[in-house]
């Protein structure tokens, strides 16, 4: 049969397959309503960016303002249920009455371990909900904690401001003290220098008090001698005069008498001078003695002063050392003040909000998508396509294989390859239609941005549909009944879903499973579609890997088909016979 006829027959079979599928209510529901229903439900469920409607159980042994504040905070978004007992609260999770239970400690106090510890009870068996609960609750509690932290931070900041002001103020004093210390130090240095320069050496010998005394004694001696000599002269003069008066007349007598009188006066005067001089000398001598004594005293004083000077110089040296130390200390203090001040000045973030939340996580979507649907959409569409392919394709094959018309089909002169191609094309058409329906609905009703990336999206869908169709065909050809084929399809789909991001993050799986998940066609397909929808780009490596997957699975599907259809094998051999003969001839 010619290629044209086979192609024509293949299209006739596709046409018939579609007609049969559309006539079957169950198949129609799966084909048309299934994806519609899924996308609508998914759209309604995920087309929002709000947190989930969670029920929170609360148990607090004692009421307090802060607990009420927490509860009010939670009530803004969730419905809360107050429990009187911790066990009741936990049991309520088991009974699905609440999604999580928050237990406050007795004497709940902020920032006072262990009285600030909140206990969260979650049901990890509900793995799909637990992370949501934990995340949402952690966020909610965190916001409350942040609010409390802000208050505490405000107090801290106020204290720091006060310290800063005080440091600034006291620094000035320290600076002044430093300056003064310096001046004092310099003065002390000068003083010490001056003191050092003062010569308090005193030589009493230089006064020659003994010589003066000796000379004075000599003078006195000479004066006494002179006075004695004068007295003796005067005596002798008086004796002479007396003698001469006695010898001389009256007239001379008288004159002599007058001389004697004068001599007596002189004598008296001399005696008086002598007395006076003796007094004077004595006074002078006393004064000299006093002077000597004074000198001695002065010397002693000067000596003492010198000692004091020396002591003073030493003391000044010590003072200077102390002043130096003080200066160093003052400078240290000043430095510390500077450091404190600088440190305080360097605190650029003075906003309590900024301190309590130094990093504000402002999640900016790298795409313009906003709702959960958009994030889930790629996985969702691949999921729908995978399930449809793994259910519809085996059903289609087994309907053909086990259906009433199977014998009639066998009796027609249509090669089995045409049936293979017809199944492939039928499934492909159905899945493409489904994809178009899903994309259209998602685009029209849920605002998914697809139109601008349509080429990349269709390219990915083309390969993904081809892959899962081949996989469904393998199942269809391997199994003998619809029930087992569907079971097989669901098992494979479940396996692919299990080692994907859909239930739990791949990153949280054991390493080997995580690596396997990286090779999971469902994961790769979802990733490719995600990239295509959100970024209009395709990671070439993964795309090529998926194409290789599709090629391999296509070959495997054909091998399985041929292995289960002997007639197909024969047909192939017959078709290949000329080629084999040609090769043999070439060898000869």
């Amino acid at each position, binding site marked *: *049969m010619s290629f044209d*006829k086979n192609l024509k*027959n293949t299209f*006739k*079979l596709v046409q*018939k397959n579609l*007609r*049969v599928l559309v*006539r*079957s209510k169950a198949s129609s529901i799966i084909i048309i309503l299934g994806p519609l229903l899924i996308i609508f439900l998914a759209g309604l469920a995920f087309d929002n960016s709000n947190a989930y409607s969670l029920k929170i159980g609360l148990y607090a042994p004692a009421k307090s303002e802060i607990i009420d504040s927490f509860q009010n905070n939670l009530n803004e978004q969730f419905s809360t249920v107050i429990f009187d007992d911790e066990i009741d609260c936990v049991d309520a999770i088991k009974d699905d009455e609440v999604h999580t239970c928050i237990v406050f400690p007795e004497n709940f106090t902020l920032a006072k371990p262990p009285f600030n510890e909140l206990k969260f009870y979650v049901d990890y068996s509900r793995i799909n909900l637990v992370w949501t609960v934990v995340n949402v609750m952690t966020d909610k509690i965190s916001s409350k904690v942040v609010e409390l932290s802000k208050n505490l931070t405000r107090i801290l900041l106020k204290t720091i401001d006060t310290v800063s002001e005080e440091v600034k103020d006291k620094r000035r004093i320290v600076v002044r003290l430093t300056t003064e210390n310096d001046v004092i130090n310099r003065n002390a240095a000068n003083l010490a220098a001056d003191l050092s320069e003062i010569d308090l050496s005193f030589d009493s010998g230089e006064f020659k008090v003994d010589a003066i005394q000796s000379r004075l004694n000599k003078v006195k001696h000479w004066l006494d001698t002179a006075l004695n000599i004068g007295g003796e002269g005067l005596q002798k003069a008086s004796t002479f005069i007396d003698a001469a008066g006695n010898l001389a007349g009256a007239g001379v007598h008288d004159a002599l008498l007058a001389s004697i009188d004068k001599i007596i006066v002189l004598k008296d005067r001399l005696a008086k001078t002598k007395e006076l001089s003796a007094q004077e000398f004595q006074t002078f001598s006393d004064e000299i003695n006093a002077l000597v004594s004074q000198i001695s005293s002065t010397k002693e004083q000067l000596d003492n002063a010198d000692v004091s000077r020396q002591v003073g110089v030493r003391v000044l040296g010590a003072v200077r050392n102390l002043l130096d130390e003080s200066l160093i200390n003052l400078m240290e203090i000043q430095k510390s003040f500077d450091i404190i001040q600088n440190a305080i000045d360097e605190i650029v973030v003075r906003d309590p909000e900024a301190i309590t939340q130094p990093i504000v996580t402002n999640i900016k979507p790298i795409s313009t998508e906003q709702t959960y649907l958009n994030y889930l959409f790629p996985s969702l569409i691949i999921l729908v396509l995978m399930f449809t392919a793994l259910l519809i394709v085996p059903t289609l094959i087994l309907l053909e294989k086990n*259906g*009433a*018309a*199977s*014998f*009639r*089909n*066998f*009796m*027609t*002169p*249509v*090669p089995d390859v045409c049936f293979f191609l017809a199944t492939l094309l039928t499934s492909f058409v159905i899945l493409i239609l489904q994809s178009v329906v899903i994309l259209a609905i998602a685009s029209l009703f849920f605002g998914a941005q697809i139109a601008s990336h349509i080429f990349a999206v269709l390219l990915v869908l083309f390969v993904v549909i081809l892959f899962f169709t081949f996989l469904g065909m393998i199942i269809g050809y391997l199994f003998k009944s619809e029930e087992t084929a569907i079971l097989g399809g669901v098992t494979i789909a479940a396996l692919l879903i299990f080692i994907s991001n859909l239930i739990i993050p791949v990153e949280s799986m054991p390493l080997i499973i995580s690596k396997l998940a990286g090779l999971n066609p469902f994961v790769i397909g979802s990733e490719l579609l995600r990239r295509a929808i959100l970024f209009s780009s395709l990671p070439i490596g993964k795309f090529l890997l998926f194409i290789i997957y599709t090629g391999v699975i296509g070959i495997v599907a054909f091998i399985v088909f041929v292995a289960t259809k*002997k*007639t197909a094998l*024969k047909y192939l051999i017959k078709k290949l016979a000329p080629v084999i003969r040609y090769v043999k001839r070439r060898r000869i």
Partner: protein
Amino acid sequence: MLDESFLEEHIKKAIIKGAKKEDVINSLVAAGWPKKLIDEYVKKHFKELEILPLIRVSNVSRAFENKIIIADTSFEVISGEIFGIIGLSGAGKTTLLNLMVGFLEPDKGDVQYLTLKKNMVSIKDNPELIKQLVGFSTQTPSFYPRLTTKENLMHFGSLYGLSGMPLLRRVNSLLSQFSLSDAKDIQAKNLSGGMQKRLDITCALVHKPPILFLDEPTADLDPTLRRQFWNLIKQINDKGTTVVLASHFLTEIELLCSRIAVLHNKKITRVGKTEELKQLYSKNFEIFLQTASKAYQDVIQFLKNQSKLIIHKIKKEGDDLKISTPMPEPVLAVLTEYLRKNGQAVNLLHAARPSIGEVFEELTK
């Protein structure tokens, strides 16, 4: 001047294409050729075709899981006949038919078909060619239940390479011939059992195959429908289609088939015309009696007392009394006399060869 060589060539080509005798004649008459001349050439060339074996089954064996179902079986089906295969339930009739159409491969032996080019070809080598020659109506109807009657015919017709108006004409013709026109737009699953069976046969005939295989065609039908089907099969055969019919319903085989093959002990034990088999394997005639009273106690007692008569078996079957005897004439004479004397009104009294059932019993002893 009429060119007879052209006429002969045209008839040959028509035969090769699988055209029916009547169609060829009608078309040539319509074209203005003399009926006498047409008949001469048609007779000549269709005769050539008819005398050749259409299917040759040679030493065919087939086993399933080491259990031999068909062992070393050989027979031939001749063009234009209704060939019956009878056998007990589970004897392997369906397996044999499946081997004959290539649905199953023989472990040993071969099945050959006479092509329109008058050469015998093995089904192994030319499965697609054979599929063009063969139509098969299985025990269970084989079509798409969710397609309408017409859609089924159109679909299968198109897979046989028909298209456009010829296909539509063929489908309409079959719908009319098999009284399915009113049900043409009804989904096949909603048709009655009889209609489904008819649709199945029309599907098998949509490509005008020269050979039609029927596997238990009337198994699930009521007597009225069964009779209709028998007529239908005869009509199909009358139009030149060779029919291979497997059935355990012996009356059907006896009524329809020109030749019968008995499948027993994993092989065809006997092939022959119905009457030949009856003569060979049944020494008794059967006398059927039905009286107005339908009370046969006295008659039975009377016959048992007749020591001169050779009577093998007396059995009441429904309203009739069946008497088996190798010499029916004296029995008929005695019996007629007895009934007359006793004043019994006779509804039915006749002697006949036994049914093929007895032959079958004999052959499968």
